[in-house]
């Protein structure tokens, strides 16, 4: 465990590196240098050895040189004064007759991140741009960009920019692409590198010499170019035609994007390009690498927004493999639903039916929902399957089926009779609140067609005291009132009991208010109530809205082949992507508790400058110790996190926290209110204890937000900030996943 005795390790290494006996033996010396790098990778701070490593850089052994350079680049910014010592050696190496040594030295010198570096590297870079070895020129070109990034606010050096533009004609293809990349970095504020007609055509002609990475990058740069005439446009397209079928998926997709962009005025050309690329796209959907498969599926989905028929005949390719991870299965099901037509509906349904009994409840529910979507068009076959699933008597399946029924009835009223018959015959009732709400909605809305409806509802009213979710209670109120309107005789008594309980004994204000509203409404008379409570029972026009429509390609082609489709939402390119991710939707309120250690100014901006702290698990705490410390210590920090607790299973939550080195001591089970969890972790020499509290939802004034209170011994505000930030990220990451399903 190197983390513990880091000083000892460094001391020992220094002793070894400065030992003349070791220095004389090149193999042993190199072994020790390797050891230093190994510790560096493991996260141990070995910057104290900088001096010894600088000495080791003066060697003819290239492997040793590389290792030492790697070390120096990592620590140069921490030890700028010592790094200057190394520069002499590096500059000497820049004039070495061996081009490999020249390139290596130049590259690493440019990687030093410290102020004042520019004056040392400018001259070698300029010399490197004219070097006769292409390897050195490649390094030098990127060196220009690195030099610019060291001093981002200085004026752009016109001579270097001109030189880089001239180097676009270099015989070496990598130099050409590096020039584009460097110019892009340097001219970022002016909108990046300019692609004019000569440059565009030069690049197009060089395409064949480039390797696949460079090809896809150049294709992205070419997106900036607008051909002057249609003739030129078609010349370009025919030049690029072969790349549409490249065996590298990234080249094929980049070409497709360029085609879609250039031919935006020619829909037939776009359609043709999509048709031709469908084969490579489908091939990525079946690639051996499952990450590539996922990316392919996401892009297929995007293409289908405009051309739903394109993959129709290949629907079998989207059948889920047995061992595929669930993120791929979810995507495939979404695609399958889109691809259903008269010919394949039976096969697709049979396939989806086999996913409904999957071990993973999320997957099973998604499959049921998918069948529900198909039911909007092919209701009869789907209803048979869904009804059959109810027979399995498994909670998660029953709940999902009932929810699907609810949506189905809303979208296509013609299936109401069949659904009502099934629901009436179903003896099993869902156990989770989502399912209960769906069932209650169905009972209330279509109580006249379900003969057993009042008896089912009575069961819920009798069990009201044990019901935790206020959403279910509200749904129950509404459903009971609706039922009363159509079957008054059977419902009157139970409605009275329900209203009485909700008004007199219920602690949740919303439920109580709703009950009061219905009570007063009923006092006004039945007809008045009917006017208010009953609305349309279905909305067939919705299915037209939600049904697939062919979008124009321009809707999505700007995000094609970017991270957008993978993220599931349209991240706009570049800046928007970063800013969207920068704004966490929560409001972080920092309540400073009075009488606590005075906090410095930085606390007001909790989002900056954290992450540097490292958490560790350390030896486990016993419950007794924790309890004693928790009672002894005072709360140092309390914060509302701005989102409810993750609905993940307890062991998921525990494992997730463990991954970021936060230990869970105890938490209250399931849906208990208030929900609490006790967690602890260690940071640099301090022990952090924390309590997560899900506010009592019924209590007035508190929302569903999670509150974290932190206690610590000894006090270290920096560590607390870091801890809260990590915790927030974890819980937020757990949250969206649940809500997506």
């Amino acid at each position: 465990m190197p983390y513990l005795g880091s000083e000892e390790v460094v001391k020992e290494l220094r002793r070894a590196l400065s030992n003349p006996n070791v220095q004389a033996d090149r193999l042993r010396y190199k072994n020790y240098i390797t050891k230093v790098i190994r510790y560096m990778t493991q996260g141990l701070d070995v910057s104290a050895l900088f001096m010894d490593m600088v000495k080791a850089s003066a060697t003819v052994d290239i492997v040793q040189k590389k290792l030492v350079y790697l070390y120096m680049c990592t620590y140069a910014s921490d030890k700028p004064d010592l790094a200057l010592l190394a520069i002499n050696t590096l500059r000497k190496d820049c004039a070495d007759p061996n081009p490999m040594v020249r390139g290596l030295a130049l590259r690493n010198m440019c990687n030093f991140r410290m102020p004042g570096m520019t004056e040392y590297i400018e001259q070698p870079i300029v010399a490197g741009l004219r070097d006769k070895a292409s390897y050195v020129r490649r390094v030098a070109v990127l060196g220009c960009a690195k030099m610019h990034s060291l001093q981002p606010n200085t004026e752009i050096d016109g001579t270097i920019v001109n030189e880089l533009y001239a180097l676009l004609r270099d015989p070496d293809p990598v130099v050409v692409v590096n020039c584009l990349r460097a110019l892009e970095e340097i001219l970022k504020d002016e909108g990046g590198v300019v692609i004019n007609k000569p440059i565009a055509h030069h690049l197009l002609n060089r395409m064949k010499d480039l390797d696949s990475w460079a090809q896809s990058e150049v294709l992205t740069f070419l997106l900036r170019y607008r051909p002057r005439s249609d003739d030129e446009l078609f010349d370009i397209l025919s030049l690029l035609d072969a790349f549409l079928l490249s065996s590298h998926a990234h080249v094929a997709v980049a070409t497709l994007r360029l085609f879609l962009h250039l031919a935006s005025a020619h829909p037939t050309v776009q359609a043709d390009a999509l048709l031709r690329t469908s084969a490579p796209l489908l091939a990525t959907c079946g690639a051996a690498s499952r990450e590539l498969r996922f990316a392919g599926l996401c892009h297929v989905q995007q293409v289908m927004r405009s051309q739903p028929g394109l993959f129709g005949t290949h629907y079998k390719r989207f059948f889920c493999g047995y061992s595929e991870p669930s993120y791929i299965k979810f995507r495939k099901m979404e695609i399958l639903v889109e691809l259903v037509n008269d010919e394949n509906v039976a096969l697709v349904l049979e396939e989806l039916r086999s996913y409904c009994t999957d071990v993973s409840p999320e997957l099973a529910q998604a499959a049921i929902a998918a069948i529900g979507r198909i039911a909007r068009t092919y209701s009869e076959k789907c209803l048979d399957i869904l009804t059959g699933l109810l027979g399995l008597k498994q909670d998660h399946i029953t709940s999902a089926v009932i929810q699907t029924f609810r949506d189905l009835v809303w979208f296509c009223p013609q299936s109401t009779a069949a659904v009502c018959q099934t629901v009436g015959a179903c003896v099993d009732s869902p156990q989770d609140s989502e399912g209960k709400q769906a069932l209650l909605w169905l009972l209330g809305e279509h109580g006249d067609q379900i003969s057993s409806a009042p008896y089912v509802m009575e069961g819920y009213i009798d069990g009201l005291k044990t019901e935790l979710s206020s959403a279910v209670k509200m749904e129950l109120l509404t459903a009971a009132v609706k039922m009363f309107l159509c079957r008054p005789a059977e419902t009157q008594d139970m409605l009275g009991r329900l209203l009485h309980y909700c008004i007199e004994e219920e602690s949740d204000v919303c439920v109580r208010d709703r009950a009061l509203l219905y009570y007063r409404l009923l006092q006004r008379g039945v007809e008045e109530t009917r006017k208010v409570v009953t609305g349309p029972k279905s909305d067939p026009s919705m299915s037209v809205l939600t049904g697939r429509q062919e979008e124009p390609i321009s809707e999505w082609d700007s995000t094609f082949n970017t991270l957008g489709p993978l993220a599931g939402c349209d991240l706009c390119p570049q800046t928007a992507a970063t800013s969207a991710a920068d704004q966490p939707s929560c409001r972080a309120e920092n309540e400073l508790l009075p009488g606590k250690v005075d906090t410095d100014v930085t606390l007001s901006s909790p989002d900056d400058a954290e992450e540097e702290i490292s958490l560790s698990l350390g030896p486990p705490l016993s419950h007794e110790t924790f309890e004693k410390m928790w009672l002894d210590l005072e709360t140092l920090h309390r914060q509302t996190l701005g989102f409810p607790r993750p609905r993940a299973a307890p062991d998921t939550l525990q494992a997730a926290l463990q991954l970021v080195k936060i230990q869970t001591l105890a938490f209250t089970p399931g849906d208990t209110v208030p929900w609490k969890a006790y967690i602890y972790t260690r940071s640099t020499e301090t022990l952090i204890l924390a309590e997560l509290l899900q506010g009592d939802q019924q209590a007035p004034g508190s929302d569903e937000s999670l509150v974290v209170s932190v206690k610590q011994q000894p006090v270290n505000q920096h560590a607390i900030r870091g801890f809260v930030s990590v915790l927030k990220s974890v819980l937020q990451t757990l949250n969206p996943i649940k809500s997506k399903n």
Partner: protein
Amino acid sequence: MISQIFILSSKGDHLIYKDCILTTGLLVALFCLCLYLLILLQSHKGLHFIHVRQGGLYWVASTKTNPSPFTIIEFLNRLAALTKDYCGSLSEKSVRMNFALIYELLDEMVDFGYIQTTSTDILKNFIQTEAVSSKPFSLFDLSNVGLFGAETQQSKVAPSVAASRPIMSSRGEQNEIFVDVIERLSVVIGSKGVLMKADIQGEIRIKCFLPTCSEMRIGLNEELSIGKSQLKGYSSAVRVDECRFHQAVKLDEFDTFRILKVCPSQGEQTVMQYQLCDELPCAPPFQLFPSVEKDYVNRSVNLSMVLIFLKLRCDLPPKSTALNVSITVPVPKGSTSMSQELSSPDQTAELQPKNKALLWEIPRFPGGAQLSALFKVDVPGLSSASLLEVGPVSMSFELPKQTCTGLQIRFLRLSPTQTGLSQRWVRYVTHSDSYTIRI
């Protein structure tokens, strides 16, 4: 543009970490969580993480821009492949042992976040560190095969470890070249034994240990036809739907003689990918005849069980065998225990209550044979609907020396003849990507 590259072990320790451009802090802790939740893409404060899982390790790239996901994923896959080429095999141990070599590789491959080159031909000029092989290559591995016969005869098999050694080691310099035909089979068989879906994804992969290699000619079946239109006559031609080639492959003799010409560079590369959909030239390798019944042991104490009788037939030619066959049968929820009757002692079966499934494993399954097994699964409180939960059955297996499309390599010629003896190996294997049988 890539900001950081790191390689993480399955537990989340970092083995390799390279910061390509100036970034602050390491968000690996957060990233681990993403892995746990199996999210491919995760964004945090404008830094997007993309990962690939290979060899039990996580290969991660982070980026601040919005690049092509295909590029990043393919690059990470290529990085993993190169690491495998240079270190011999992919594992936490080999990465730990060769970290200096991997840093050196990364240094040449990526500069300032831009991909410079990933070609072995170029890289080999710059890579100086020697790989530390976790298991030195020894001739003993070859002792059980005919040493000098590397011809295309199927009876001779290259040792499986022979191809997993570093490409650039000075020791054990063997002029070897491996050509593998690998097919992945994904099949869905309906409840009445009807073939519902059959897909074959195949590739021809070369692993070359020759330091310099001039042109190599790979001859495929002459009767190979591509696409549906090209069926010639009535012969049972070997057919694939479509194929794609590595860009270095010369195809001037492909149309007439079905010969691929390629100058392989050191390391592993895929020269040809092909696929065949909806049609298998032969019968699917396995047929299952299941029967599922409910049985009450004792009605009064509600002790009930499900009897699952499986008869599995292997439709391969009699000479060939399937290896590592495992059959997963979903069982009703609440299954507590199982007893089984298997036909031979080398088979195993166990109940996995966590996955609601029983797993039956057969290490060796000869072609033409038929095996049967009876499983009695105790399920308290069984209802008739619970039987619906049994199925679909999924299988995984490996068919050595078999290609389902029938694609064969006729010959493998190095021209002009290489100096020194060079050994050529041709291997065929079919894996089950997904083999599902509905009950």
